[in-house]
């Protein structure tokens, strides 16, 4: 793994890729704080369906978003091997519940291409870029739109 500061100079980006359902997604590794195993979350009443609840992250309350549900692919049936990726967006920590973490990729920025306009693809707006790795399409998640930073309570 190359040093992250180097990326800035060489126009490279490091991505953490993970699986949601049968799709491959990625986030900029700089926004990832940690990866945790699944612990059952405390559900919040009157919360949107994609909010699984809150967990205790070393004394602070962490909101868990079910990424599959958020992307319109139905809730994840949680098993032991599901993981929570703790990401920081807009100064806030949020946990993403995903099926599994796959890999860390180091790519030149030029390898990212903007997502094509696909009519009525619900989850498209959450994807900021696409790239192809070993014949698989990896969707780079736009954290800000996937995780609205305003209070999530509004359904």
């Amino acid at each position, binding site marked *: 793994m190359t040093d992250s500061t180097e990326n800035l100079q060489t126009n490279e980006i490091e991505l953490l890729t993970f699986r949601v359902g049968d799709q491959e997604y990625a986030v900029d590794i700089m926004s990832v704080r940690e990866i945790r195993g699944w612990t059952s979350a*405390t559900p919040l009443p009157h919360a949107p369906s994609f909010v699984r609840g809150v967990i205790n992250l070393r*004394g602070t309350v962490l909101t868990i978003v079910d990424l599959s549900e958020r992307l319109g692919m139905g809730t994840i049936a949680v098993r032991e091997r599901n993981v929570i990726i703790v990401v920081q967006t807009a100064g806030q920590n949020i946990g993403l519940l995903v099926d599994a973490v796959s890999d860390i990729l180091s790519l030149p920025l030029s390898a990212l291409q903007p997502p094509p306009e696909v009519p009525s693809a619900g989850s498209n707006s959450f994807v900021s870029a696409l790239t192809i790795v070993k014949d698989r399409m990896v969707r780079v998640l736009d954290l800000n739109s996937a995780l609205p930073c305003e209070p999530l309570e509004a359904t």
Partner: protein
Amino acid sequence: MNTPNDPMAEIRATFFVECEELLESLQDGLQSLENGETDDETINVVFRAVHSIKGGAGAFGLEDLVEFAHKFESVLDAVRSHELAPDSAVLAVLFQANDMLNDLVFAARNGDDIDKARSARILETLATYIDSEDASDDDVPDFTPMTLTLDFDENSDEDPADPKALPPLAELADTADGMALPESGTSGHDKTQDGSPLNGFVIRFEPQDSLFASGNEPLYLLRLLSEMGEMSTFCDASALPSLKGLRQEKAYLAWEIILETDEDESTLREIFDFVEDVCTLTIKPLEHSDILAMETRQSAKRKSIGKKPSAGEDTQQSSPKAEPPANETDNIPAPEGQPVPAQNNPAVVPADNKPAPNRPKASKTKPTVRVDLGRIDRLVNLVGELVINQAMISQSIQEAGLQANPEIDNGLNEFMQLTREIQDSVMMIRAQPVKSLFQRMARIVRETSADVGKTVQLRTEGETTEVDKTVIEHLADPLTHMIRNAVDHGLETPQDRRAAGKPEEGIITLAAEHRSGRVIIELSDDGAGIDRPRVLQKAIEKGLAPENAELSDTEIDNLLFLPGFSTASEVSNLSGRGVGMDVVRSAIQSLGGRISIHSVPGKGTTFTISLPLTLAVLDGMVVEVAQQTIVVPLSTISETLMLTPDVIRSLGTGASVVQIRERFVPLLDLGAEMGFRAPLESYVGMVVLLISLEDESQMAIIVDMIRDQRQVVIKGLEDTFGRVPGVAAATILGDGKIALILDPVDVVENSGTGDTDIPTNLSLAG
């Protein structure tokens, strides 16, 4: 001046912190004066507060503040010298000046603009009192109570109170002898009356240790003096110990200065303005004899300089006896050893005995430490973690099946007690007496009552009740609003009061007390009480209550808390500002508090605010609902019971009530309400928590089972998630899981029963 790099900024900040304390003691003192405690000590406290603010303000070039404080001080001086009786008219002015001084201090701190017109108006009023006092200024020391604490005090015709700020007597005795004490205070007095043919002063300047400790330098003071005119000085080194005994941080030297100048005494005193508290300063008009005395001494000194090394020790040994006469020589050029009392006006000597008991009183204040609030918050957080940790340990011990071991049990119990004690102590650090809050309210009462032309007396009780600092801060706004309401709407006009056979002066009582782990703040007026027919009519007009509604008194009273409700038929510029009691209520609720109202027609209205002691922990009941663990604040639960078939009554469509001792209380399934499960067919065998609402109505919340009762640490949800309906906060349980803390009142209000236009609590109480 307050750029971040400015080294003065920090000192400045300290000054303003001190100002707050001084303003508080000023307010206190004035309050005591108003209550008729016009003893000298009280007046001195008041005077000193203003004086110190003036001194500090001068250092930071806060001209407006200095000017105002100076005038204020002058009037207080007149009060202190008993020339101005602190009657109600004078006190009203003093209170006004006090408020203005407050404003000026805060304006100076925040760099705000000040209301110059108002300041000028008050200054003018103050000036009318000063003029009458000027002529007799010289008599002031005769009545000065604190001269006894000084050594050779012909001190301070203007500032006799200052010496009180001096260190205790023991320390004074270090720098000088105590023998002259009983005669002190007035020895210079006769001479001031004579009128001296010479223009000038004799100054005796004795620095104390603290003068050096506070970074002052006598040399600069003397230089400044020398710029004012012809000056000759004599350094009194008689207190100087041998080289061996010399401690560099001590003050051993004193100066006698003869200054021939045309400046007046106050100009001269200005030079010493910042060291007044840390030195003994004596200034009296110059006479020929003084010059002679000085010359003799100066030449004597010159002669002795040659054999200084041994002379130092001699002086040291002989000083206890030799010193007093030496010190008096500035008054008495004649043979040394002339008895000092001869100089004094015998008439005033007895007066000197009186203040003696005051000294311990002044030094009684407990030492305190100023701590950055951030550090305390950190400590609070850590203790919170400790509480969680303790819960975790006890849970894992239980799960390990070790309950039978008494040693572990005892150890755990002790640990629990210690944790709780630490918790309480930490909370106590954050706790502050509500006094500061009440004082602010006193001002609101004064201003509001003046605006609406009512005379109102504010009585406060339980000022020492301590509440978490955050709670106090958040309470100021709602309480201000309530006070305004009480003065404006609660109390009748003087005419109406007379007609009702009440004294014209209305009384508003603000009381605080601790009651069963909560803080109760009561605001009551002795006004006409709530005009219920009018309130109801208004509510119907505004569509807040259904027409021809039959409401109980409590229900009508609670209409006041509805958004968009205002009873004043004319919106006065005071209360009806669009901020209604609903805002007050939500402010209180956001503090985890409740507010209730109680009114008796013709007798008055009482608002009762009940608040948690702290916002960091709470005692909760841990319950289980649909496999979820939820914490219900213990303070909201009045009773718990098990549902049996014979107490449940169904009521129309789906709603049921539970019968509890001749009362029917609506049932609410918490699991369904929180969306954890669909409403159940039967609730028999489940547990209900009886929740008391603000309006004293009740609600029965159904839960599956009660698990535990324990102290939990409150973790805010709002930062991460925003407000969740029905949830006050979250906490971390012993197993590391997060449990939600219920806000029962919110749950009830959000429940389906409250969706109509009819206010929730009305429909609940029905």
